[in-house]
């Protein structure tokens, strides 16, 4: 236990994920421009309006879309040339926008295929943490409610026992009470020592969960600032995110 705590301290000084000068194209359209971002063990949120390139950035980090230029370093290793499965094996977990649970797998099967024996997170622990999933373990993925699907998507990622979890809009479309549950859950994950990148449109949820905020505008990271600063500065909020988001 003491060993673990020292390593956390050690890592806290190091960055987990380093993105430098990342470019991404979809065919002829240039989606990401020279993105630079460094993620340490402090939870970070990427905020931005719709269409600013947040999901594209997630997919580039996961390797689901190949970037055209730039570097992605993860735990000191360049992963830019790796296929997604190797990035996952290296300790990167992804909770995608829209959850993307498998519609023809039961809850239990979702967890079973990812579970590795002897790891810190296993099926038992998931069911302890989310009794609701235990109740629904025989249900197919597409028979779950939005909140349950989100629980499942996050559990699935946790079973990989990752070093970093990338969550793409986990609160989208959820009822306010469920949003609070998700925020609590993210806070718990952070306490586990897992690095968190939270991509959000919902600023209030994001600000509750993270320490640092990166702002994306037009396919670029334009600013990185402590969450308190953004929380207290409504002008800044308006400037970067627009009223619609702030009132959300």
């Amino acid at each position: 236990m003491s060993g673990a705590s020292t390593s956390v301290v050690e890592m806290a000084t190091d960055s987990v994920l380093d993105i430098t000068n990342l470019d991404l194209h979809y065919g002829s359209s240039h989606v990401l421009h020279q993105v630079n971002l460094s993620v340490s063990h402090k939870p970070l949120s990427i905020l931005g309006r719709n269409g600013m390139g947040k999901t594209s950035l997630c997919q580039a980090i996961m390797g689901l879309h190949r970037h055209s230029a730039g570097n992605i370093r993860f735990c000191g290793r360049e992963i830019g040339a790796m296929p997604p499965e190797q990035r996952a094996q290296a300790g990167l977990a992804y909770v995608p926008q829209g959850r993307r649970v498998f519609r023809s797998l039961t809850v239990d099967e979702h967890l079973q295929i990812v579970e590795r024996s002897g790891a810190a997170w296993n099926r038992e622990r998931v069911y302890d943490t989310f009794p609701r999933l235990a109740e629904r373990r025989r249900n197919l993925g597409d028979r779950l409610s939005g909140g349950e699907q989100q629980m499942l998507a996050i559990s699935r990622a946790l079973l990989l026992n990752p070093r970093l979890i990338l969550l793409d809009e986990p609160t989208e479309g959820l009822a306010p009470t469920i949003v609070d549950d998700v925020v609590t859950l993210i806070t718990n994950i952070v306490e586990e020592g897992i690095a968190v990148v939270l991509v959000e449109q919902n600023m209030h949820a994001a600000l509750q969960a993270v320490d640092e905020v990166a702002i994306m505008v037009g396919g670029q990271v334009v600013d990185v600032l402590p969450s308190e600063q953004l929380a207290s500065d409504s002008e800044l909020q308006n400037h970067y995110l627009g009223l619609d988001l702030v009132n959300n």
Partner: protein
Amino acid sequence: MRLFLIVTLNGLTLAALYFLAASGFSLIFGLMRTVNMAHGALLLLGGYVGYDVVELTGSWMLGIACGGLAAALAGAAVQAGILGWMQGDELRQTLASIAISIVLADLMLWYWGGITYQVSLPDILSGGQKLPLLGVGYANIRLALMAFAVVVGVMLWFLIQRTRFGAVIRAGVDDQDMLRALGFPIGRIFIAVFALGSALAGMAGVIAASALSISPGTDLQFLLSSLVVVIVGGMGSIGGAALGALLVGLAEQYGLAYAPTYGVVFTFGIMVLILAVRPQGLMGRSEQ
């Protein structure tokens, strides 16, 4: 009436063979969206190898196993060496697999010649017996065919619905990218599934060579019937393949018995009709 029952029975046994041939095709399409036009060639390859092994060892079961193995190896090589490199580009894969089937068919013609082969059956399966109600002789192998189809169907169902590997395959069918993002090397899974689908084709080839016969041209016949079976039933669904095989097998036999002139046209007519009404096949899920 007696004829109708016999023709129905014939349709069922033919359906069993079609199901065996088409199940691998359906499996491959279901996971990878690959329309493997070399499926018939792999089936024929399995049949030839099975024949050679049965001649050599006298063991029919060994023949089936080796036929399946040969086709599995060839299929894995095709996926790993060629089709895997163009994953996601369905049209190119279709064309590449056509090219592969042309080459394979020609090489098999070279090696095995153009004559017709029939695998000799073990004693228990050869010959026929009098059917109790209908009062006619019926080939044992055809009755056994139905048993094979049921066994293979149940095994496939078990594999896909009840095992971890099956769950991974289903997850891949649902969302390949997500599966990769969970750390699954999709390339290797694809090769494994392709080998499995090809093994089913190869075994079906040996069984076809036992119940009917194989010769150059058998590859195209079974490719076409597999296409119809799988499309009518719904691509990627094992239940759909079974349903499609039933429809096609029965249609073909009723056609042959009652409307020989246009029997074959009916089979494809049924396919057009079903696809016009349900573009994704009877049990297929619509795209997205």
